[in-house]
């Protein structure tokens, strides 16, 4: 197999090298490259623009001369964020919900995903459908909200975690993956007297790590970006707002932002208060950075990730 690949590779290379590029092809390539280059820039530039503005000195930013390159690089804005009210607690809530929520979801998906592969389970088909069918309907925003308040989950941190424990999509992904693992592995373990939990812990969990990493990454991004639950459920508990929700509040606040800064006498805070758009930019950067940091890891799982949209029960 490996030899075959080695043999065919050079052949293809020489073929492409030998190909004569016609004028029409050249034009096509030029247009094609140009289009993708422009679109790529529109995707990247806004983040770059935010970055250079937040690391430039605020005077240049005020003059509006920081457009393509940073001027007077410093981290004043990021340091000044410590003076922004409620930002610390919002970041903490976001980090906590991302870590706890993802961990619980992944553990539950792995366990339930394994359970539903067990054909001898009592009424397995029924319960599996019971789970999967919930992907295709929902009662609507208001009934959901009324339900959450009936359960006492409004204005409570648990509202970020508990509803996300059972994630049908992810359970299907894990189930499909586990079914591709040779049955003999667990069967022999069972014959050797291993219990259900031992098999799960020692065989299923380690072998399904690739798919668990996939759902972990996508789940974490979902938690980090999630905004609706904070907006709707936490109306009376501002200390439980997520970072996204805080950012939304700051972005849409049309009145001056001076009142969100405590200790306005410190020089960094004063500079920031003088230019409120920098507060908005810097908080935006803070919210983007974690996504950009996990992004390289995510790319490895894109292929599995598309399955998220395409798998069937």
């Amino acid at each position, binding site marked *: 197999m490996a030899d075959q690949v080695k043999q065919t590779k050079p052949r293809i290379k020489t073929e492409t090298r030998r190909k004569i590029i016609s004028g029409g092809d050249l034009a096509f390539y030029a247009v094609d490259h140009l289009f993708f280059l422009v679109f790529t820039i529109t995707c990247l530039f806004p983040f770059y623009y935010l970055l250079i503005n937040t690391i430039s000195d605020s005077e240049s930013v005020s003059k509006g001369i920081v457009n393509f390159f940073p001027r007077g690089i410093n981290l004043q804005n990021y340091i000044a964020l410590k003076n922004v009210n409620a930002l610390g607690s919002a970041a903490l809530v976001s980090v906590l919900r991302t870590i706890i929520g993802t961990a619980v979801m992944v553990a*539950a998906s792995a366990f339930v995903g394994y359970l539903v592969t067990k054909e001898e389970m009592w009424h397995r088909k029924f319960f599996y459908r019971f789970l999967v069918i919930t992907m295709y309907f929902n009662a*609507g925003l208001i009934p959901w*909200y*009324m339900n959450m308040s*009936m359960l006492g989950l409004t204005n409570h941190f648990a509202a970020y975690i508990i509803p996300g424990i059972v994630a049908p999509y992810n359970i299907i992904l894990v189930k499909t993956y586990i079914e591709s693992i040779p049955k003999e592995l667990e069967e022999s373990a069972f014959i050797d007297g291993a219990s259900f939990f031992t098999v799960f812990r020692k065989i299923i969990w380690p072998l399904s790590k690739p798919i668990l990493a996939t759902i972990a990454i996508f789940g974490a991004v979902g938690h*980090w970006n999630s905004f609706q639950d904070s907006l709707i459920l936490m109306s009376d508990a501002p200390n439980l707002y997520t970072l996204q*929700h805080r950012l939304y509040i700051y972005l849409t606040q049309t009145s001056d932002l001076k009142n969100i800064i405590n200790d306005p006498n410190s020089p960094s805070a004063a500079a920031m208060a003088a230019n409120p758009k920098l507060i908005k930019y810097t908080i935006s950067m803070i919210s983007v950075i974690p996504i950009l940091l996990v992004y390289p890891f995510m790319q490895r799982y894109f292929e599995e990730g598309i399955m998220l949209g395409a798998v069937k*029960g």
Partner: protein
Amino acid sequence: MTEKKKTIPEEPCHPVYSLQRILALLMFFLLFIPTANPARVCDLVNKNLSLLTSAISWTGLTSDVGRGFRAGWVSESSFRLIMAGSIVMLLGICVIAVGACMSFGNNKLKRSSFLFSLAGPFITVAGEALLVLSSSRIVEFARANGKLDRVYSGTLNGFLVGKSFVPYPSGRMILFAAIGALLLILTIITLIGTPAPEKGEKAQMESRYSLFLMFLPFALLTFIFCYLPLWGWRYSFFDYQSGQTLSKESFVGFKWFKFLFENEATRNDIFRVMKNTLAMSFLGIITSWVPLAFAVFLNEIPSKRFKRFVQTATTIPNFISWILVYAVAFAIFSTDGFINSVFGGNTNYLMSSSHMWLKMLLWGTWKGVGWSAIIYIAGIAGIDRQLYEAATVDGAGRFQRIWHVTIPGLVPTYMVMLLMAVAGMLSNGLDQYLVFSNHANATDMEVLDLYVYNLGIKGGSIPLSTVISMTKSLVSIALLFMANSISKLVRKESII
């Protein structure tokens, strides 16, 4: 020798056991229903509080009593007693549940389950006794302070005998006690019917049942968060204002359904909102070929590196939230954003109300096209190379190859995506339209999801927005089934 005694077989699905489990399950669900909350011993306990919440959340339990505590006509200790009673009841119900689960086992395990099934109802009733006690203490305390009317607005749940108050259990308590009594009777029947386990028999359970019991907590979670909200549809038939309870008096039948069409202002709103919703969805459907084209033309680029780079960069926007998309929009298009500082000017483009549909479509495309293209890129990778070679040999040019080989290979995937888009026609999502809307452009931006949010959560008209939520859900399900049957008809394959 046990032939005669064996009146109930070991089979765990015997009707007596099933009945027992159904009752246990019923009791478990009553934990979540505020209307059935026995801990509501007086008017001071929040009407929307379930027994579970009263047992685990002190702030929830005392949310309506703050003034009473401060003014001193409610003693905190009596509320502690309510919480204690709730906790004991919760414990009792848990014990009952454990007993019901254990009854799936063999005779030996069933024997031990009786211990739980017998103790559970007693613990539950003991909790109720604490609640009754707390109610009497609250009344006596309030009466001593002359604020009895604050504690009970209607009739008292008991008799006043001199200075002391003799309460009687409420209907809600009787319900729990009745279920408990029934469980007790059933347990005694099974206790007599179950033969003594053979000597040396170990307590165990068939794996089919133990697997089921491990699955059960997750099934319950699914029920609570995905099926129980359907119970909230009942609000559409009541005159409800937040904080109140539903009662026979507030039942209004189809009033709100009629209101939707009879009230002119609402009707105009609905027409406008539906126009926005359908316009956004149709624009989305009309441009649904864009990711496909994106994938096809990206595939024509020979350099693997460049391809990879483009793919990496264009997928980033998909992974940031709509808030961050708005933050980006803010940085570029606001008054002192990029556009204005480069080209000079003072326009806040985000506040303009022109071409809102088109702008929203463009933002949606910017965010989603790179990601949506991935599925087609994977599709292209799956097309047989020999087809391309054959086409080249036959003299097909680049565009002919694309048209006759690549596109036909991607059409099945495209059809699935298209049908899913049709099925989700009413769900544009809330986030995008919420963050981009402001007083200048709100009229053209309000899609159905945003309208429901504005009406129900912001405006507080729960019944009317429930009517809309409910209709939307039903229509969406109908659309999904329609799309699915079309798919079955055309592709002989279902999409769900």
